[in-house]
C-alpha cells in the first residue's frame, strides 16, 4: 500500500508584519493599507530553499522517517542552477551515498509533481521509500502584490509501501501552457498577468476537469472528500473550483495566508502537513492539488496509522515558534532588494577551494566530527590525533555526528565590528553535553537573548555568499532552544 509514511515541516522564525509592508508603501499606493493584515514568514539572511529543506527533512526523520533510497527536492528557487541541490540536503543529513536524487523545478506544482513521481516509484516497487521535500524562498519586487502574499517555508513527506499514514488512492494530472506568471532564465523576479484572468481562465477551467478525472479514476465521490488541500492567493479561486467540482465548502483547507503566506512549490505540502497535524481522522479522504501550467490532483485516504504517527515540530510547531518582524528595511536587506553599503570589511574574497569542500564534505556539510575509540572523547573537527590531552592516540577517531547533539553556551559576544547582514554578529563557544565543543556562529538571535548557559541546538544555514562567483557556503550554526 503506497502512501505517505511520515512528514516534517519548517517555517522560518521571522514573521514580517504585513502592516509594516503596507506602511512602507502607502505613500505611493493608498490601497496598500488594505493588504496590511496578518503576517508572512520570512527567511533570515542565512536561510534559503536548501537550508529550509534540510530542516524539513530532519523534522521528518525525527518524526518516524527512515533513511530513504531517494530524495526528490522540489523548488522554484533552487540556490544552484547547476549542482545537485538535493545532494546538498542529503549530504547535510548524512543520508549516505547509495542514494538516487532529483531536483524538480520550474513550476508551482513542482512539489505535487515530485510527490507523484515518488509515489509512482514506490507503487511500481522500484524503490521502497523516497523522501520528497519541497521548499521555496521566493523573491518579489518591493511594493509588488506578491510581497504581501508570499511566504517562505518547506515541507517533507516520506513515501513508502509500509505503514502509510495516508494511503495513495490515485491521481490525475493535466498539463497546459497557461502562463499566469513566468521567470526567464537569469531573471530575479516573476512577471505576472492579471489576476482575474488567472482565476477565470486558469484555476476555474483547468482544475475542475483534473478533479473530475481523479475522482473518476479512484471511484471517490466529490462530496466524500473531507479535505481539499489547494493553495491559491487569488480571492475566491478555491471556492469557485469547489463549487464547480461538487466538493463541499467544509472541505476547503486553510491556506495559512494569515500566519505564513504562500510558500510556492512547498505550499500544497505545507498545507497538507498543517491538516494532518490538526488531526485528520482515519478513514477521511484528502484531495491534494498543485497548480502551475496545468494541475496535479492526488487523492489519499487517512489510515489508522495516523494515530501512531510521531510528530516533530512540523508546520504548526514552526508557526508557533515565531518572532514578529516589523522592520521592513530588514526584509529588503535579507532578500538583497536594496544596494547596501557593506563597508570595506565585506570586500574580502570568499573563494571556496572546491577540493577542500569535497575532502571535508562530511565535516562541512554534515557536521560530522569524531569520537575516539580509545578514550571515548567526542570532538570536532575530526583529526588524526585525539584532542584529549590524556589520550593523544593516533588514527583512532571514528565519525561522529553533532547534528542532534545538544549543548550550552560557555562564552559569547555580540560583535558590531565584523560584517554580517544582521548585526551584531553573535557567536561563542558551544559545549556539547556528550562531549565536544567548538566556536560557532549563532543565528535567529536578537540582542540580549543569549548568555552563558543558554541551551543550544544546531541548524544548517548559509555561512557565506561568494558574490564574485555565485557560490554559497553552507555550515551549521547554533540557535537557542
Amino acid at each position, binding site marked *: 500500500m503506497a502512501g505517505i509514511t511520515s512528514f516534517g515541516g519548517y517555517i522560518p522564525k521571522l514573521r514580517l508584519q504585513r502592516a509594516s509592508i503596507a506602511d512602507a508603501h502607502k505613500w505611493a499606493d493608498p490601497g496598500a493599507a488594505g493588504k496590511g493584515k496578518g503576517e508572512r514568514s520570512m527567511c533570515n539572511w542565512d536561510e534559503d530553499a536548501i537550508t529550509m529543506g534540510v530542516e524539513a527533512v530532519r523534522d521528518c526523520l525525527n518524526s518516524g522517517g527512515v533513511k530513504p533510497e531517494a530524495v526528490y527536492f522540489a523548488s522554484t528557487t533552487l540556490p544552484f542552477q547547476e549542482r545537485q541541490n538535493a545532494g546538498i540536503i542529503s549530504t547535510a543529513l548524512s543520508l549516505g551515498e547509495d542514494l538516487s536524487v532529483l531536483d524538480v523545478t520550474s513550476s508551482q506544482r513542482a512539489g505535487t509533481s515530485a510527490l507523484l513521481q515518488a509515489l509512482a516509484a514506490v507503487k511500481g516497487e522500484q524503490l521502497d521509500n523516497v523522501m520528497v521535500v519541497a521548499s521555496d524562498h521566493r523573491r518579489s519586487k518591493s511594493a509588488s502584490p506578491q510581497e504581501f502574499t508570499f511566504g517562505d517555508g518547506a515541507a517533507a513527506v516520506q513515501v513508502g509501501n509500509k505503514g502509510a499514514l495516508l494511503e495513495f488512492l490515485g491521481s490525475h494530472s493535466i498539463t497546459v501552457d497557461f502562463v499566469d506568471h513566468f521567470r526567464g532564465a537569469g531573471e530575479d523576479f516573476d512577471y505576472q498577468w492579471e489576476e482575474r484572468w488567472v482565476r477565470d481562465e486558469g484555476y476555474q477551467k483547468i482544475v475542475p476537469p483534473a478533479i473530475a478525472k481523479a475522482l473518476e479514476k479512484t471511484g471517490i465521490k466529490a462530496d466524500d472528500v473531507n479535505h481539499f488541500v489547494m493553495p491559491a492567493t487569488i480571492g475566491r479561486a478555491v471556492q469557485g473550483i469547489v463549487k464547480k467540482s461538487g466538493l463541499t465548502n467544509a472541505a476547503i483547507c486553510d491556506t495559512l495566508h494569515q500566519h505564513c503566506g504562500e510558500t510556492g512549490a512547498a505550499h500544497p505540502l505545507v498545507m497538507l502537513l498543517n491538516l494532518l497535524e490538526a488531526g485528520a481522522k482515519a478513514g477521511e479522504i484528502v484531495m491534494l492539488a498543485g497548480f502551475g501550467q496545468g494541475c496535479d490532483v492526488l487523492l489519499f485516504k487517512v489510515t489508522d496509522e495516523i494515530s501512531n504517527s510521531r510528530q516533530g515540530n512540523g508546520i504548526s510547531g514552526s508557526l508557533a515558534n515565531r518572532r514578529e518582524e516589523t522592520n521592513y528595511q530588514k526584509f529588503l536587506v535579507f532578500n538583497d532588494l536594496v544596494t547596501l553599503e557593506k*563597508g*570595506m*570589511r565585506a570586500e*574580502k574574497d*570568499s573563494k*571556496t*577551494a572546491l577540493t*577542500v*569542500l569535497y575532502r*571535508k564534505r562530511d*565535516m*562541512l556539510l554534515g557536521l560530522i566530527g569524531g569520537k575516539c575509540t580509545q578514550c571515548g*572523547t567526542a*570532538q*570536532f*573537527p575530526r*583529526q588524526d590525533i585525539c*584532542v*584529549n*590531552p590524556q589520550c593523544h592516540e593516533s588514527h583512532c577517531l571514528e565519525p561522529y555526528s553533532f547534528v542532534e547533539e545538544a549543548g550550552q553556551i*560557555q*562564552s*559569547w*559576544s*555580540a*560583535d*558590531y*565590528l*565584523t*560584517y*554580517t547582514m544582521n548585526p*551584531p*554578529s553573535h*557567536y*561563542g*563557544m558551544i*559545549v*556539547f553535553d556528550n*562531549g*565536544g*565543543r*567548538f*566556536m*560557532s*556562529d549563532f543565528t535567529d538571535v536578537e*540582542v540580549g537573548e543569549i*548568555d*552563558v*548557559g543558554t541551551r543550544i541546538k544546531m541548524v544548517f544555514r548559509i*555561512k*557565506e555568499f561568494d558574490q564574485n562567483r555565485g557560490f554559497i*557556503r553552507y*555550515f551549521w550554526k547554533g540557535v537557542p532552544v
Partner: protein
Amino acid sequence: MAAGIKDKVAILGMGCSKFGERWEAGAEELIVEAYEEAVQDAGIDTSQLDAAWFSTAMENVNVGKGGIALSTALRLPNIAVTRVENFCASGSEAFRGAVYAVASGACDIALALGVEKLKDTGYGGLPAAEQGTLNPLWAATGSAPGNFAQLASAYGAKHGVNKEDLKRALARISVKSHANGAKNPKAHLQKVITEEQALNSPMIAEPLGLFDCCGVSDGAAAAIVTTPEIAKSLGKKDIVTIKALQLSLSNGSEAAYNAWDGSYFHTTRIAAQKAYKEAGIDKPRDQVSMFECHDCFSITEMVTMEDLYLSPEGTVVNDVMDGFYDADGPIPCQIDGGLKCFGHPIGASGIRMLYEMYLQIQGRAGDRQLSNPSIGMTHNLGGSPVSNVASVCIIGAG
C-alpha cells in the same frame, strides 16, 4: 633538562619609531626610523650585524612576504634575514630568533626588527587575517574584539562578577593606560580619558566598547643583541640581559576539548610558569618590578594579570580597582601606555614592549621613569583566547 637562556644574551641597543597613524611613512621608513635609534644606541656599525630576524604579520597590507624588505630598507650587508610571523606575537618571535642565534654562538651580533603598516587598509580596526582554505568554511565569523570579549562572559560567570563591576574594572584598566600613554611622546594615543568616557564609549563587541580596544597603529621597533662579554668589550655599562624567553602555543584542546572554561589563557599560564622557572623567580608578585602585557583589549589585560600569577585567581578586579597596576602602584603595568595607547603595529609590538622595559631598567624613560626597576616582563599574545601563541620574556639588570 635544558639550561635555558638566563644571562647568556644582552641587549646592546634598542630603537622604536613613533607609533600612530603615520600617513606620511611606509613600512620602509618606519624600519629605518627604529633601526637608526637602535644601531646608534648599540654603538655599532651595520656591517657588524651577523644575521637578522624580521617580524611582520599582515603582509598583504605591509611589505609582502620574505625578508627582502628589511634587507633592502637597511641595505644590509647580504646577511641572513629570516622573516617570522606568529600572529600578534610575531615581534617576540623575531627577538627569540636573534637571541637564540647569539646564545648558540652562531652569531656575535644579531638584529630583531618588527614593523607593521596597518593604516593603508582604508578602514579602522585590523584587517581580516588570512585563515587558509579550510577554516573560513566553518570557523565562526568573528573579529578580534568579539573573540576576546568572550573572556568577559566566561570570567564573570566563573567568578560571580556581575556585568557592571566587570565593565567598571575594564574601564579602570583603560583609564590607567591612557594616563600612562599621555606621558609617552612616541605613543599613538596621548590623551587622558575618564572612567565615564570609557564606560560610555560606543559598543564594539559586547561588553567591549571603543575604549576597551587598543589602537591600530603603524610603527616599528628594533633590538640588537649580543653576548654580555661582547657588550662589555664594546664599552657598554648597565647591561640588560635576558632572564627568560618562553613561548607556548595552543594545541587545540581549548578549542575542542571540554576542560578549559574560557575565562583565562591556558598558554599564558604555561609560558609564565616556564619563564619564572628559567629566570629563577618564585614569587612573581614580589619580584617582578613592572610589566607590559598584551592588552589588545582591556579584558585581555585583566585576565592576563592572573595568568601571569601576579593577582591570585578571581581577585584581579580588586587589584585593578585598588590601583595595584597603576604607575604609582606596586607593579606598574603598561607604563608606556601599552598596546592600548602606545599602539599596536602587530609585528613590532613584542619588541616595543621590551623597548620600554629596557629603557626603564636603564633609567632612560623620561617623565614616566619608575623608581629603580630591576626586573621587567613582557607578555605578547597572538591569536584569540581559544587558540593562541603566548610569549613571556623577562629581562633584568646585570
